[in-house]
């Protein structure tokens, strides 16, 4: 009985537990950058462009060591390690996967803030009804760091004036 595999001439599947090539689902990714923070070899990077208001999450399979830490931390389960293993290529650009997302705009000054629109939607969708007042949170959320600080100061001074009266 021949023992040799017929592999390159017939399809082959990796075992169920195999950690193969990672993949980002662009429908689920919110662009939070949790995977970028944990990636040990920096295969995932986050590129913010504040002029055009975009954020790129770039995954390079050629740098990935398949440790699956990104899968563990992803809050929406967008990035997953598939069982796919045929990643050989003659061009490195084929290993790159880019997900481009829009950054949110500050409500006060109109500048782009350092989080995406999808992150906002996700955070608002997480709040269970009846506990927090939605409208007050919605008012505060799309603010850049400067405007948030200003708002805090304004609120504090208002409170002081009220106390004096």
């Amino acid at each position: 009985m021949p023992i040799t595999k017929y592999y390159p001439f017939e399809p082959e599947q990796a075992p169920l537990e195999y950690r193969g090539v990672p993949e980002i689902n662009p429908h689920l990714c919110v662009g939070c950058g949790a995977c970028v923070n944990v990636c040990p070899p920096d295969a995932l990077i986050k590129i913010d462009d504040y002029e055009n208001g975009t954020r790129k999450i770039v995954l390079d399979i050629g740098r990935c060591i398949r440790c699956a830490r990104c899968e563990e931390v992803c809050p929406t389960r967008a990035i997953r390690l598939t069982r796919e293993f045929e990643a050989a290529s003659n061009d490195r650009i084929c290993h790159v996967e880019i997900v481009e997302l829009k950054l949110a705009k500050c409500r006060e000054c109109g500048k782009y803030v350092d989080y995406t629109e999808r992150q906002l939607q996700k955070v608002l969708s997480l709040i269970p009804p009846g506990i927090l007042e939605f409208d007050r949170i919605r008012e505060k959320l799309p603010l850049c760091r400067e405007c948030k600080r200003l708002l805090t100061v304004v609120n504090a001074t208002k409170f002081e004036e009220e106390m004096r009266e």
Partner: protein
Amino acid sequence: MKLRSVWVFHLNTGACNGCDIEILDILTPYYDVERLGVKLVSTPRHAHALLVTGPLTRQTYYAAKRAYEAMPPKPRIVIAIGTCACSGGIFYDSYSIRRESERLRLEYPRTGGASEFLPVDVYIPGCPPRPEEILYGLALLLGLAKKKLSPRHYVGEEFVLPRTQFKAWVEVILKAKIRKELGYFDGYKLLERFMELVDIAETPEALQRLVEEAKTREKDSRIRDGLDKLYSYYLEVVRTYEALLNQKRGIPRIQK
């Protein structure tokens, strides 16, 4: 030029030996790379191709250079095996790695490894790659297989939120707990199954019946235990939520 029988020379430029063992694997009768005409030779002077593994340390740079120059000038193929040879891998930032150019923080594709100074023909990423992956890479070089990957760039895709409000909140809390109980690999899959049951069931009692039903069908005792724990955590979260709502309404909490 069509390649027929490629003779290869194995060059280790500071790899951790994982990729080298996988190269040894493809020479065994089970994978038998020699049926593709690939033969391992003992000197670069006889070789058509270099199988490079490793991130190219400072010490191995000179040896790698000499091996490359000793190869016959005509096909002079370089095959980078493993993530380290492709882009530096986990060692990309190490002090002992030779750098041909300045590394930028935000460039892609990521640079580094043996591919920086050798003109690579086929990149085979993996840490280490399976023997099948190496076979596939060699088949790609010989024209026996087709390339599967292509650069992907997604702009303006539709955003999907699987769950919202209370159920999404429950999922976040349960996810953190099941990760501690079962780990991410089994735990997240189980959580997905459990949340589907939550979507179907309307009351906690109906959910309990569904969980019991799922438990009878499950053979793995770890998963059965996980289902039990998920159900108890779910009840805990529901109770906390109701208590919070009661506090909000100003009704005193009833002790059970």
